[in-house]
């Protein structure tokens, strides 16, 4: 846990665990502390799935906090994540969001790096400083661990190993969400900026589902049995059965809602890893939402969608239709979430606390056992945030 230093903005945190002070969202000076204590701290951040950069030389740019990074598929088949900077004078090496390169050349002084990040050429090096050694000037590599093709990076050497960090209650459904074996194909992206602080984007709960999303009721769509599991370090897992009606009267084309079903899900898996990433396997959609805060205001979300390598053509087409129409910033069953992000952001520029109620049994405890339709699954994440930021909770 990070300790609070003198420059940290102070924030009076309520004694009750189901209260979150509204000023925590966009308070001046917080973002810099969040970068230091959370994004550059002991957390794992998903950067890329192998399916997005399947061939040697394929790369994908991303951000970790405010640091520009890129993942690149090496000639040796390994995927590495580097800070996007030449080790000479700091020029960015990758200037597009994705692409393919045989090697990485800085245009400024033609320093040349191979796909494994080694410096292999630098003109005029006989006139460099006496101690200069190419071996010391490889690209700045981030610590990486992969899970069924999904590569996570961390800025800290102290971050626990990935499986230990997530715990089985999170990584087991994540494996199922990644098709069971991670053999995925990328089928496309939807990218959008939501007008809210990144922490407002994170709040998700089992309470709002049937109430906000009118499509569920109109489509006579019954939520079945399910669980909501919270980990102590703030990760969240919804694993729910979906019972689809035999016939969808409310739509002209009900086929968009077919659940062709695969062996890895009862219908719906929604995961959220601390601090900010959501993963979903909703019906036949396989979706990772890479999320990048734009400072204290705004969060850029890249919805990446996948098919499985064993899918037949019909299944791929079905996944494409669902992915394009149900989730994302225009989706039939998720556009409302985007609207709420924006409204939460505006509404929280007022006084007082945001208050969680559904499922609260003890206003002074952090519940790790929560019901499927409770909103208390968020409290462990808020508690972890509070601890990492060093905010003292008011006495009871």
């Amino acid at each position, binding site marked *: 846990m990070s300790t609070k230093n003198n420059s940290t903005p102070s924030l009076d945190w309520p004694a009750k665990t189901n209260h979150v002070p509204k000023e925590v969202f966009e308070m001046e000076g917080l973002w810099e502390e969040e970068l230091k204590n959370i994004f550059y701290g002991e957390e794992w951040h998903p950067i890329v799935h192998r399916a997005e950069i399947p061939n040697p030389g394929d790369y994908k740019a991303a951000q970790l906090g405010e640091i520009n990074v890129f993942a690149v598929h090496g000639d040796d088949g390994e995927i590495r994540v580097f800070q996007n900077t030449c080790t000479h004078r700091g020029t960015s090496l990758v200037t597009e*969001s*994705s692409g393919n390169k045989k090697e990485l050349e800085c245009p400024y002084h033609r320093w040349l790096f191979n796909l494994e990040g080694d410096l292999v050429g630098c003109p005029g090096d006989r006139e460099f400083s006496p101690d200069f050694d190419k071996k010391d000037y490889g690209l700045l590599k981030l610590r990486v661990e992969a899970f069924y093709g999904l590569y996570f990076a961390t800025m800290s050497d102290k971050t626990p190993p990935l499986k230990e960090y997530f715990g089985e209650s999170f990584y087991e459904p994540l494996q199922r969400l990644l098709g069971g074996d991670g053999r995925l194909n*990328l*089928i*496309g*992206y*939807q*990218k*959008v*900026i*939501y*007008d809210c602080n990144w922490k407002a984007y994170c709040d998700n709960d089992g309470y709002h589902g049937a109430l*906000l999303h*009118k*499509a569920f009721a*109109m489509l006579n769509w019954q939520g079945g049995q399910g669980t909501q599991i919270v980990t102590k370090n703030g990760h969240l897992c919804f694993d729910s059965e979906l019972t689809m009606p035999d016939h969808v009267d*409310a*739509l*002209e*084309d009900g086929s*968009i809602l077919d659940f062709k079903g695969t062996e890895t899900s009862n219908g719906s898996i929604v995961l959220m890893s601390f601090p900010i990433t959501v993963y979903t396997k909703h019906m036949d959609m396989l979706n990772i939402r890479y999320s990048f805060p734009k400072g204290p205001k705004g969060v*850029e979300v890249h919805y990446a*969608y996948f098919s499985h390598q064993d899918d037949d053509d019909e299944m791929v087409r079905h996944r*494409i*239709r669902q*992915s*394009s*129409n149900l989730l*994302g*910033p*225009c989706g*039939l069953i998720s*556009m*409302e979430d*985007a*609207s*709420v992000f*924006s*409204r939460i952001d*505006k509404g929280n520029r007022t006084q007082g606390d945001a208050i969680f109620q559904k499922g609260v049994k003890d206003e002074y405890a952090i519940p790790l056992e929560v019901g499927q339709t409770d909103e208390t699954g968020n409290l462990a994440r808020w508690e972890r945030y509070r601890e990492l930021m060093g905010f003292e909770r008011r006495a009871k």
Partner: protein
Amino acid sequence: MSKFSSVNKELIEILNNEYISALNDFNMDNWLACFSQQGQYILTAEENIRRNLPVAFMLDDCYARLKDRVKQVMEIQYDSSEHYQMRHFTQLISATESENGVIETKFNFSVYYTPRDTHQTETLCVGKYEDSIVIEKGEALFQKRVAIVDTNVLPRYVVYPV
């Protein structure tokens, strides 16, 4: 060869004007009326097209889906959306007729939006339409309108077709 070879440009312009008027007047029934019974509408990102990735922002690949799009906007999500005024500006780039009588057109577009709370106008997206147009009973209709946005990262969630 001319980019406007022997094509009735006037009918095309009328159709395009009806389309953008429908959206800017918030009239989704008129939007639907711009499509033939085989009509399709796709809103996607330039990045997906360039990388041959088929997922779109909106993928209405049959007339039934177009009708469901109208229902989504006007009924299912009407009360949870933060509505905004759109304003389209388009420019016809090319129009050519293929052997089967289908007219292929391209328009550039820019779309501004003005939220009803801030009333500050901003750019929603910039891109191009790639269309297949048929003439039925003297009237032009979209068999397919594909809106490809250069704005790969949209500045907000999108309630209506572009």
